[in-house]
């Protein structure tokens, strides 16, 4: 079957897989199967990031995201965040369990010194220990909540993200539960982002992968706003080089070489995970991403 070819836009968003595939947790729905043992993608150093930052500056990149794995296991993370914040806004995607009071205080100092915003996105999977820890491991809920509280205390407004592992009928109950729990823990105006499930990695084993017809055809792209897709204006950098997006870092079809400028080429949307982005829009960005799904009646 012919894949839809996405013409590239401008490079607005640059991701770094600073944590590689290493994580202190081993969530059973992780789309790249990160864990304490998965060294498929190693941690990144500031020195490895620098050349890409120079290229990004020349290309006028608008925002930066740091992910993994778990970024907080990277020893140089503070230096990396401070360095990138001199050049643009930074979002750190974390499970929150390693965010201590002392760390939150140091990041508040770093953020106060620059005009650009520093965001933290803390992922959890349920608004109580029972539902969250079933997926993320015992004790992870309490640790994440302590991390959130430490960030809030220092003036950050962390974006709480949750993958929709519950049935859509329970949306109101679950989302309402998140808000109540976060407020009860001192986060007065919580920001919440719900992510769709990506049926790859550990999640494929958990609930099954994509059905054969769940893929993007060239016809589906007619009249579709290509800017909705992250790969239109973003790239991901890992220790290996440049990848088309944060989702396809482990997929050879997602690898685009070692130059950001040369990675902005028409891209065939042939991976089945592309189908989820098609439905939900730029799911990886900080903005909530339910709009496309709402419009499509999902």
């Amino acid at each position, binding site marked *: 079957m012919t894949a839809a070819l996405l013409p590239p836009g*401008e490079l*607005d968003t640059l991701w770094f897989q600073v944590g590689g595939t290493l994580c202190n947790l081993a969530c059973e729905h992780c789309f790249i199967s990160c864990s304490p043992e998965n060294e498929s993608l190693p941690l990144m150093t500031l020195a490895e990031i620098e050349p890409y930052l120079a290229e*990004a*500056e*020349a*290309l*006028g*990149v*608008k*925002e930066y995201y740091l992910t993994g794995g778990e970024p907080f296991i990277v020893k140089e993370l503070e230096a990396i965040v401070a360095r990138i914040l001199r*050049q*643009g*806004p930074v979002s750190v995607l974390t499970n929150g369990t390693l965010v201590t009071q002392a760390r939150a205080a140091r990041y508040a100092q770093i*953020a106060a010194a620059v*005009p*650009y*915003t*520093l*965001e933290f996105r803390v992922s959890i999977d349920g608004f109580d220990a029972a539902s969250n820890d079933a997926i993320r491991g015992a004790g992870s809920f309490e640790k994440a909540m302590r991390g959130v509280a430490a960030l809030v205390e220092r*003036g*950050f*407004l962390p*974006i709480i993200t949750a993958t929709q592992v519950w049935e859509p009928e329970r949306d109101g109950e679950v989302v309402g539960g998140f808000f109540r729990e976060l407020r009860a823990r001192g986060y007065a*105006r919580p*920001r919440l982002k719900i992510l769709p499930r990506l049926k790859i990695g550990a999640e494929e084993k958990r609930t099954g992968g994509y059905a054969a017809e769940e893929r993007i055809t060239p016809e589906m792209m007619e009249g579709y706003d290509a800017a909705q897709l992250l790969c239109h204006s973003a790239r991901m950098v890992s220790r290996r080089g440049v990848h088309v997006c944060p989702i396809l870092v482990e997929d050879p079809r997602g690898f685009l070489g070692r130059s950001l400028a040369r990675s902005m080429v028409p891209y065939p949307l042939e991976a089945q995970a592309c189908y989820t982005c098609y439905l939900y*829009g730029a799911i990886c960005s900080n*903005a*909530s*991403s*339910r*709009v496309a799904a*709402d419009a499509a009646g999902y």
Partner: protein
Amino acid sequence: MAAPGDAKERERARAALIGGVYSNHVALAEVLADARRRGIEECYCLGDLGAFGPHPDRVFPILLDYRVRVVQGNYDHSIGNRRDDCACGYTDPRDNHFARLSYRYTFDRTSDRWKDWLRDLPVRLDFSLGGKRVHLCHGSPRRTNEFLWESTTPDPFLRKLFAATGADVIACTHTGLHWQRELEDKLFVNAGVIGRPENDGTTEVGYTIIEAAPERAAGVRAEHVRVAYDHARLAAEMREENLPAEFIATIETGWWTSCLEILPGKERARGRF
């Protein structure tokens, strides 16, 4: 031989830039009177005439009376082209809920004559001020509904916009919060909005005056001017029109209560909600 219009181009040394009006006809009249008191003849509006406030048709006669030149905002494009939604660029369900309420009200009460007028507005205006090239747009030069917040608009990105437009000064609105940044010999301005206060706990609104300033590297300086207006009157009209209590609270308290999810953390932390 120079045409009379060219002579005027050469003379222009100051201009008023007015951001989103959001149907706030009371503030619009006050802001334009303020500019006139200051002797400013050139007034530009950066788009989004409707949304949020009452009686959308009331802003048009005021704009025409003061000969304001208007750039098309996303709202204007949607209303003018009879679209289903405002294309504000919100992605959160809560933001979109309020955006939909507001759009439906504004759409139903904008007469066809003004819908056509909105449809035909230009998406950009370029002019010369003190010999410098000024580019006006709604969101950004490349996209009408792009949000350019201070904390998420880095210098390298602005340099790219300046290179692409060839302008010395770029001015936009769309976010609702004003800011400006000098960058080498360029000046970037977000003029703020006059439709609602700036999420700072005051009821005033603000517009921006740009002025030729040969002593500055960019050759132009920008001053943000705050204006008090009869916000109680606007709130009363909004109540009569049964507009959402959340919208009225913003006009009366100066704190944003809706469409907050789009704010970056740094800007949102400064507000109350």
